[in-house]
């Protein structure tokens, strides 16, 4: 019997090896391991490092302001585990930050005050697919693309999913109040949830809805309270979503426009008809220019609008014909099918240009569809004024709302320039406010905007927060108040002044250039 063949011996070897590196454990570690077991808790510096960030790269200096390093990472298995952890956290006044896929850019899952990271990304099971009454119950860590693919293979369609579906989790999207691909037809996540199982800060497990039927009746709508709560009210441990019979066909189409403004006009016209495509997305020609710089085979065009239809083929035929006529009025020309299909497969991969920096800054905001052309012009101006290379891209969330995901390339290795580039997000947000829109999220950095949008409503939100979480341990420092690690809140105007200073700095600095490198074709 060889060593490679002998599992037992191997296991022994392994445990000896890990014993060498095991450190002295803390009291919190011992208490948490009592709840979830040893292999689901870690307080090693390595693990803490990896749970201290999300998509947005933060310089180490930022940790002086916020305690982004968690003290300990826990992977619960179910609601009972979470309940036990919450009880322990309340007793000892330890902040708890729930975390899903950490694929957001606003720092929602990054601790502001250290404490426990509750990694729900590891709860990845689809618990029930109910074919009779059309709903699915999943754990919060289930990946959206996996859920979409699994359901489609069984003849069902998930209504909407995020444009970062391969990285995002169901729980995360609920907590950020997501809209995305498919929302034009089926609405955002709030319209798709039947029920949530939530663990409150004192460890109580509640169910917010009724999984078999809809929620519309008297009684406070608890489900909607948790949608977009950024984990500040409770920990979602189960999500029941309604599902739809899979359509006969999902047909992507693409239209080329001379420029993005024309495309915006065409989109506006389309959304004023009764044609309801599954998804509408728009991309500036500069997006494809950047792809070409990466060595990819991308067309030289003004702008692209991707319109995806779903449903019965015969009905799609009619809708497609009518759409083509509308697009033609604004000089939109239909592309070949292969291009549209390729665009559809690339729908999750809009940030490839990051490699050119290396670095990427995304400014997510919403604007009224009626003002889409103004917003396009405004966003392009911002990019020009800040001397940044990027592209205006986005999609239509519903008939009123356009979601902009404008991005620009930055260089993470140049700290000051990179910090200054963050001004892009603030400036795009300003543009959105100008046309009656709003920013895409708040998270760690933009909570100041909350008051700007909701006014005195924020006080009510504060009351709700203190009812659900009287000890302020649920993802503290987010949303309601932007608190630094020293307990001093950052007022919205201070953040705003800071950001404006960065913007001025960025405008003074030389324009961003992309180093010419040879990129292999792929």
């Amino acid at each position, binding site marked *: 019997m*060889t*060593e*490679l*063949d002998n*599992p037992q011996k*191997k*296991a022994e*070897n*392994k445990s000896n*090896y*890990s014993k060498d*590196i095991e450190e002295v454990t803390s009291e919190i570690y011992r208490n948490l391991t009592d709840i979830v077991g040893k292999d689901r808790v*870690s307080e*090693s*510096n*390595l*693990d*803490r*490092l*990896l*749970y201290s*960030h*999300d*998509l947005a*790269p933060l*310089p*180490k*200096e930022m*940790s*002086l302001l916020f*305690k982004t*390093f968690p*003290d300990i990472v826990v*992977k619960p298995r179910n609601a009972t585990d979470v309940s036990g952890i919450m009880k322990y956290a309340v007793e000892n006044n330890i902040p708890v930050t729930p975390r899903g*896929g*950490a*694929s957001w850019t606003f720092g929602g899952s990054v601790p502001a005050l*250290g404490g426990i990271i509750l*990694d729900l*990304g*590891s*709860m*990845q099971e689809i618990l029930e697919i109910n074919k009779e009454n059309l709903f699915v119950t999943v754990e919060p*860590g289930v*990946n959206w693309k996996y859920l979409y693919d699994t359901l489609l293979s069984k003849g069902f369609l998930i209504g909407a999913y995020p444009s*970062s579906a*391969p*990285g995002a989790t169901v729980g995360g999207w609920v907590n950020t109040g997501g809209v995305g691909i498919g929302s034009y037809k089926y609405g955002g996540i709030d319209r798709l949830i039947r029920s949530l199982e939530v663990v409150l800060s004192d460890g109580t497990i509640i169910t917010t809805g009724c999984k078999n039927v809809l929620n519309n009746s008297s009684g406070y709508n608890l489900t909607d309270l948790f949608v977009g709560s950024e984990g500040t009210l409770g920990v979602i441990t189960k999500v029941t979503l309604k599902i739809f019979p899979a359509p006969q066909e999902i047909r992507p189409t693409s239209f080329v426009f001379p420029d993005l403004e024309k495309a915006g006009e065409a989109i506006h016209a389309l959304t004023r008809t009764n044609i309801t495509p599954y998804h509408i997305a728009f991309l500036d020609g500069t997006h494809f220019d950047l792809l070409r710089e990466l060595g990819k085979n991308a067309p030289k065009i003004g702008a692209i609008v991707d319109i995806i239809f779903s449903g019965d083929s015969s009905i799609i035929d009619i809708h497609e014909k009518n759409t083509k006529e509308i697009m033609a009025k604004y000089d939109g020309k239909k592309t070949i099918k292969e291009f549209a299909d390729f665009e559809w497969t690339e729908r*999750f991969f809009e*940030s*490839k240009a*990051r*490699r050119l920096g*290396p670095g*990427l800054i995304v400014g997510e905001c919403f604007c009224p569809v009626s003002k889409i052309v103004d917003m396009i012009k405004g966003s392009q101006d911002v990019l020009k004024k800040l001397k940044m290379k990027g592209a205006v891209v986005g999609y239509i969330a519903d008939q009123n709302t356009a979601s902009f995901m404008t991005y620009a390339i930055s260089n*993470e*290795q140049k*700290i000051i320039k990179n910090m200054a580039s963050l001004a892009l997000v603030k400036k795009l947000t300003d543009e959105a406010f100008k046309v009656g829109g709003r920013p895409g999220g708040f998270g760690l950095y933009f909570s100041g905007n909350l008051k700007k949008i909701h006014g005195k409503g924020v006080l009510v939100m504060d009351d709700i927060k203190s009812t659900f979480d009287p000890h302020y341990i649920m993802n503290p420092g987010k949303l309601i108040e932007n608190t630094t690690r020293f307990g001093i809140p950052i007022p919205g105007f201070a953040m705003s002044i800071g950001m404006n200073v960065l913007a001025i700095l960025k405008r003074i600095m030389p324009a961003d250039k992309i180093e010419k*490198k040879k990129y292999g074709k*792929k």
Partner: protein
Amino acid sequence: MEKNRKEIAKNTNQKEARPNLVKNKPPHLDDIYACLQCGYCNSVCPIYRETGWESLTPRGKVYLLRHLISKNSIIDKVLGKKIADILTSRGKISLEEAMIKIYTCTLCSRCETICHVDIDFHEYWEQIRKWMVENGIKPPPNTIDMYNNIANEGYKNPFMEPVSKRDEWYRDEYKLPEKADIVYFIGCMSSYHEYQILLSTLKVFTSAGLNFTTLGTDEMCCGAINTMTGQWDNFKKIAENNVRQIKKRGATKVITGCPACYRAIKKYHKFVDFNFELFHTTQIAAILIKKGRLKFTKKFDEKNQPIIYHDPCELGRVMEYESKGIFETPRYILNNIPSINKVLEFPNNRMDSICCGGGGGLRAVNYNLTTDITQRKIDEAIELGASTIVSACPNCKAQFSDAIEIKKEKMKDSKEKFKMKVMDVIDVVAKCI
């Protein structure tokens, strides 16, 4: 480098100087910085599916590397690294722990299929391991043992098996010529553990009348383990030995049934000159079938059907990234055996095939984890109604066999009956001729 290794071994008890990873920049630096941290790779990573730890995902590992090679930031310079670390509640990262994380990976390269910024992960992980070992960080102990066993003249294989045992399965039964146009490079896994593959291959080749021979006891481990575990310093010697032995037999073609051997032998080009052609056994078997040189006289057992084909990562996806993957050839063979009614497919197949769990030297680092991955795959096969899992890689076969045994053990007391067979494509062919 060999010297370096010895020195490190000598000084194990003394406090070692921390390698300067900031100065000795790793390969693929562009990729480390290009990573978006979008986490798409997590969704396809078989290790993440089982463990759920961020540190065991491609995203986490890239972030870790980025941290290890990053220069001191402004506050480090102003306040000093120690104070800055205390203020930001950070701490020193154990390089040994980092090493285990980096080595907890099957090198299946499925992350490359979904990478947002097109990182060449099939090369990346091997190169990073090599870079870390070269910087004097010790790889996990079991991989060092395997390295030493391969270097040991008495073994020449990673499993500590004696050289003399290498050809004992076929030495007496098959009298192979000393010189031949074709050399069948068996590989350690088939020579010592999955010897059924070796016997099947010999049977198929003989019945087709091929003029071939093997390297017998002169065969040395192909070195795949060395390339996977970052311990390259012995690789040149291995390459030279095997090429010399092949040349000695006057062969112009080399056939191997092991995708790991196939890839390792391809890498010999960087170290030695040779001009023989390299084939995988499935390629040869397909040609033999096409030419009508194999007569299928026996029937494949009905009760072992339907069969399901599993794409080995190294034969399919990884090879596709390197040059051209072998996806259709094994399927062609299976579909052309008259008594096989149907070849089922896993929902994730070809480029998207999920690793069996046994790749990348992970069996030596975390055996239990590998069988967990395999059991998920076996469950998938059961759900699809398959009775036999067919692969084209001895390592996959060993991995599936192990996991089936473990599953049987687990289900010993349950009422449900569980039956699953594992075969190599060449086993199936041999059974039917």
